[in-house]
């Protein structure tokens, strides 16, 4: 899922400084799971913003919402009536959610309240780690199901660099070396032969973000 972290409150306060009535909108999906932008965080942040503004003698009215999935048009459009009543919106959904609101409400400023960080998984309560870069051509079949593009600091395709030591990455000693994980996994599966194959240069410029923003069109689903 998409992971995010709340922005420093001072930064959010700066972006809403000119306004006296705003909507704070969270999202019930990914950002709720990582405790950055769900209904609970909307309530907490709304109170914090009200208090901060009251403290400087500039009270602010903060309306609250947390649609089930801010990035889906039908949920975003549910906010239309509320958005009519405010001068600006702060969204603590991911960057996608922010832009969905922007597309739906062309006349209302929308500010991000979180930094969208990565596509990752929960490894234990309160700890999330990056797992996918949405690179556009999955190679997990070749690497024992462990992604070196998202998990190796140098995105190496053909084995670990010289800095892999005792299972850890030299960049951050708390980070597992992706290639050690790949090696161990393929060894367990009896598939070490897979490491003999050279993975050729990637077609970044055709398959990935480097080709420009990507778009999926499914003719069978279009209405």
């Amino acid at each position, binding site marked *: 899922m998409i992971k995010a972290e709340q922005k420093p409150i001072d930064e959010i306060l700066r972006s809403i400084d000119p306004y006296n009535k705003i909507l704070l909108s969270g999202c019930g999906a990914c950002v709720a799971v990582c405790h950055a932008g769900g209904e609970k965080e909307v309530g907490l942040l709304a109170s914090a913003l009200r208090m901060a503004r009251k403290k400087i003698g500039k009270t602010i009215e903060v309306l609250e919402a947390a649609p089930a999935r801010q990035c889906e048009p039908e949920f975003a459009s549910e906010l239309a009536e509320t958005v009519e009543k405010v001068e600006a919106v702060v969204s603590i959904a991911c960057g996608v959610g922010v832009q969905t609101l922007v597309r739906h409400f062309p006349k209302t400023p929308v500010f991000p309240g979180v930094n969208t960080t990565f596509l990752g998984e929960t490894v234990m309560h309160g700890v999330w780690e990056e797992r996918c870069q949405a690179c556009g051509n999955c190679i997990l079949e070749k690497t024992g199901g462990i992604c070196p593009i998202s998990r190796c600091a140098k995105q*190496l395709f*053909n*084995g670990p660099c*010289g800095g892999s030591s005792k299972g850890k990455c030299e960049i951050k000693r708390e980070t597992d070396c992706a290639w*050690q994980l790949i*090696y161990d996994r393929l060894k367990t599966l009896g598939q*070490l032969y897979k490491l*003999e194959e050279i993975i050729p*240069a990637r077609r970044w410029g055709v398959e990935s973000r480097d080709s420009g923003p990507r778009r999926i069109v499914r003719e069978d689903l279009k209405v």
Partner: protein
Amino acid sequence: MKAGSNLEKILEKGLFAVTGELGPPKGNDVSVIKRKTDLLRGYVDAVNVTDNQTAIVRMSSIATSSLLIQMGLEPVMQMVTRDRNRIAIQSDIFGATALGIKNMLCLTGDHHTFGNQVDSKNVHDLDSIQLIDCVRTMRDQGTLLGGEEKIEGEIKLFIGAAENPFGDPFEFRATRLGKKVAAGVNFIQTQCIYDMNRFKEWMKMVRDRGLHEKVHILAGVTPLKSGGMARYMAKNVSGIIIPDEIIDRVVKAKKPAEEGIKICVEQIQELREIEGVHGIHIMAIEWEQMTSKITEMAGLLPRPKVE
């Protein structure tokens, strides 16, 4: 002959090669290069010119290599994939070969967060093995990577790469060398060796795969200057293993630097005896003046003249 460099000729004749290392200045002060070149000329067959090593911004390896040629010392131009995509890589290879550079070392490069431009975006369009394949394609097929388009002129490069027998997973290190050989590498320089047992074990795996007959392996050494340096490297540099007895020798020595040189010379003599080791790569970084002493003490002088 792939490129006809001095290094290639020496290795192809079956002579024991010696390479050194030269770090370009953190600026455009050519006198630094001249001073280091004077310290190395005549004592090595070729010298690696590092490419912004440890991600510290320095004079480009291409420009420095070109200056070395003018000063009469053969360069091994290092190139890392950290800072260039394949457009820049291939363009730089055109330029480097036009300037007379004949040896190239293909590397991924130290991570940018170790250096002095930590806010930069790293590239890694290719990894080191894909870079080897790219250079081999340019040289042997006369085309760009993934393209049919013919290159104007000829790319003649003796292709090198690095390997670290002290990185993990250890069992994978010979497999990885095999991939580099399959990609087209001609010579390998290793990370600095202190743990002789582990190196010998790695060389055995290399020989078992027959790789020592397909690639020239130059064993890397770095003289230890002091007990502090030995301890620091052992503790803080990932992928370097220094056994305690070596650290102890330097720490307890009355003249640690002399002891470090002595250990280095002993290591060279031991490495020379290992089947498949075709040369030595001396990385006396910011201690270039010691290269002459080490090569002399190890009986590697005078360097052979080859036609």
